[in-house]
């Protein structure tokens, strides 16, 4: 029984949150990795792209709520998601047309594009703050839990409860669908293959008649969709705050690099590795250990390795360890 209780506590406080957070990071890292593979630079504006997409979702959700539209037990934000994706696509395509395209024509070096993306980051950041302000915004509605801790206790008779938030369930389902769609697209469709070809060998792609501008456009569209989805899911799960999205840049980059930059499978694996390490290392294990450890060894402290404020440090240390042993990331990077 104690063992079951420990397991439930572990799931409740570590596994479920980490899976949800990992899915959000994975979606974010996929966007970074696609840009890195195809446009060949790390996009510092990615966090703010997520924030922009999520912001549109927040605004549309408010509009729908005001109009009395709801999605039953599911959050209204899911209905707003397609609009948000569209809005974000429009923004990134305009940005590409006005900003990035010029540098492609100039055959600019990737590091110049990185600096350019800093400028875009400032602009998007300012834009989001200008439109919705820098404060916390809540926009989740519908049922809060799929399984609540109390119901779970009543159902199983265990001392520990397992709560699964609706947002967590939705995160995982949406992430799985998005990733499945992406992989099908990249591996099975002619356009998807042409993107991989362009990433692998630009010159040869050109000689094969692949239009680089089209590849780039489709990449931006996919990236905008992924970023918005990640942003909305993160916002539903936690809350929407522009600066938090900017700060997600570090764990997202860490995920993409740990997995091997440019490799989509790596981005997903990296997202979960970073999420699980962050959650496990900053979790206070006392509760789980009191069930498992013999009474004499029962821990006196919280058994928390690091305070939650050091979650960035965790992603960073994991990153360093991986790079020390596998310089190209866990999955060989640099090929979409």
């Amino acid at each position, binding site marked *: 029984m104690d063992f079951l209780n420990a397991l439930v506590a572990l799931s409740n406080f570590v596994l479920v949150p980490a899976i949800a957070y990992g899915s959000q990071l994975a979606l974010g890292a996929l966007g970074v990795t696609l840009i890195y593979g195809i446009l060949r630079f*790390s996009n*510092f504006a990615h966090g703010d792209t997520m924030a922009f997409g999520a912001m549109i979702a927040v605004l549309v959700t408010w509009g729908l709520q005001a109009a009395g539209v709801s999605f039953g037990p599911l959050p209204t934000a899911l209905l707003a998601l397609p609009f948000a994706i569209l809005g974000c696509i429009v923004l990134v395509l305009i940005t590409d047309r006005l*900003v990035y395209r*010029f540098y492609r024509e100039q055959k600019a070096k990737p*590091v*110049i594009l*990185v*600096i*350019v993306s*800093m*400028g*875009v*980051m*400032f*602009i*998007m*950041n*300012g*834009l989001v*703050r*200008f*439109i919705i*302000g*820098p404060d916390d915004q809540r926009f989740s509605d519908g049922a809060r839990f799929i399984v609540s801790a109390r119901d779970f206790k009543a159902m199983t008779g265990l001392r520990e409860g397992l709560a699964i938030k609706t947002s967590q369930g939705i995160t995982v389902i949406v992430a799985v669908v998005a990733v499945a769609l992406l992989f099908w697209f990249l591996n099975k469709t002619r356009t998807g293959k042409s993107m991989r070809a362009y990433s692998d060998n630009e010159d040869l792609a050109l000689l094969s008649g692949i239009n680089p501008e089209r590849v780039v456009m489709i990449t931006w569209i996919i990236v905008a969709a992924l970023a918005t989805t990640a942003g909305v899911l993160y916002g539903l799960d936690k809350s929407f705050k522009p*600066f938090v999205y*900017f*700060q997600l*840049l*570090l764990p997202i*980059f*860490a995920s993409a*690099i740990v997995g091997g930059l440019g490799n989509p499978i790596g981005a997903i694996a990296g997202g979960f590795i970073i999420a699980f390490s962050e959650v496990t290392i900053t979790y206070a294990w006392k509760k789980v250990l009191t069930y498992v450890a013999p009474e004499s060894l029962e821990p006196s*402290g919280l058994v928390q*390795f690091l*305070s939650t*404020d*050091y979650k*960035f*440090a965790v*992603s*960073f240390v994991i*990153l*360093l360890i991986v*790079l*020390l042993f596998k*310089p190209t990331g866990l999955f060989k990077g640099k090929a979409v």
Partner: protein
Amino acid sequence: MTETVKNTLLFVVVGSLILLTGFTQSWNTAILILNMGLISAIMSIGVNLQWGFAGLFNVGVMGFVALGGLAVVLVSTPPTPGAWSAGGFGVILALLLGAATVVAAVMVAQRMPKGRVQTFTIIGILIVGFFVYRAIFDPNIAAIEAIDPAVAGNIGGLNLPVLIAWPAGGLLAAGAAWLIGKTALGLRSDYLAIATLGIAEIIIAIMKNEDWLARGVKNVYGIPRPAPVVGYEVELQQDPSFIARAEWFGLDPVTASTLSVKLGYSLLFVIVLLALLWMAQMALKSPWGRMMRAIRDNEVAAEAMGKDVTRRHLQIFVLGSAICGIAGAMMTTLDGQLTPGTYNPLRFTFLVWVMVIVGGSGNNFGAVLGAFLIWFLWVQVEPIGLWLMNLITAGMPDGSALKSHLIDSAAHMRLFTMGLILLIVLRFSPRGLIPEK
């Protein structure tokens, strides 16, 4: 128009902008812009050394600046009574043990034959070391943090003159830069950008959470000033000779005292800036500087000629970060307080990058010019934005939601404008206002 004339003119323009602020707004604002402009210029020189002269991409400027601020607290504030005996030495012991654990693990990684035994030894050392460290560390910091938590609760400083804290800030930043550079530049490929991005966040996290060190988010106030160059307003206002001089300028004693204090800082900052600028210029004209540029322009050839590229990169990375640390220490001295919660990468990392790129990467004077110009705009965009919004919304009915939203949002024009300036300069003048020669 020769290049010198053009560059001088550019400086004159930026100088006039600041003077104009003095005449139209207030001299207080103008000198504030000047002082932070001077500090920004020093940060720019640091980043310019790394990016402009060595192509090193440091996106962790914020961390090094913050370390400089930390150094000010650790060097110049008075020690908290009883903190050392309560737990100070214990903390030092714990930190030394922690460092010893890491060193031991690294040595095992280097010396022992690779294999499962090695892996387990490393993991074992790290786990045992971690728990020993926590066992000593936790009670000691609890003891320190228990001392008068409302005003202290930290270890305090060495009570040395604050000017000593400036080079100390440089040293602290240099130490952190050496550690991170040694790790990130030593990897098979260069991962400096992500490493600096990460270390900056970690430094800020430590400064926010380790209350025993510098009170965390409870902030440290009342950092001593670099007297006698910079005095205290209250004292000046009671000094008869000062009042007499103020009258001669036609100022009331209160205004005169605040201006005098700020100008005192300006004087010190100008000295530091000129010294660092001179050193940076001399370094770049020296054989060392020529070699750095040779490495930048053709690393393969430089390596073939037997230059240790990684070592040189580490050198310049540490130097540039140290300069950022000095600037950070100066900034905390100017503020008179350390507030870890206000360190934001947009302001302290990416804005410095905008300064360097706009001014002209690879040219020290360009970096300085960019710093003054961008800092001026950073301060002035907000009132300009507000004015603009008032103009736009003038025709709207009072109390309309859009009007109040637009006026409230004017403050956020700042980031937007900085991005726009960066993109415009990158596009139309990619080498910056004062390009590298």
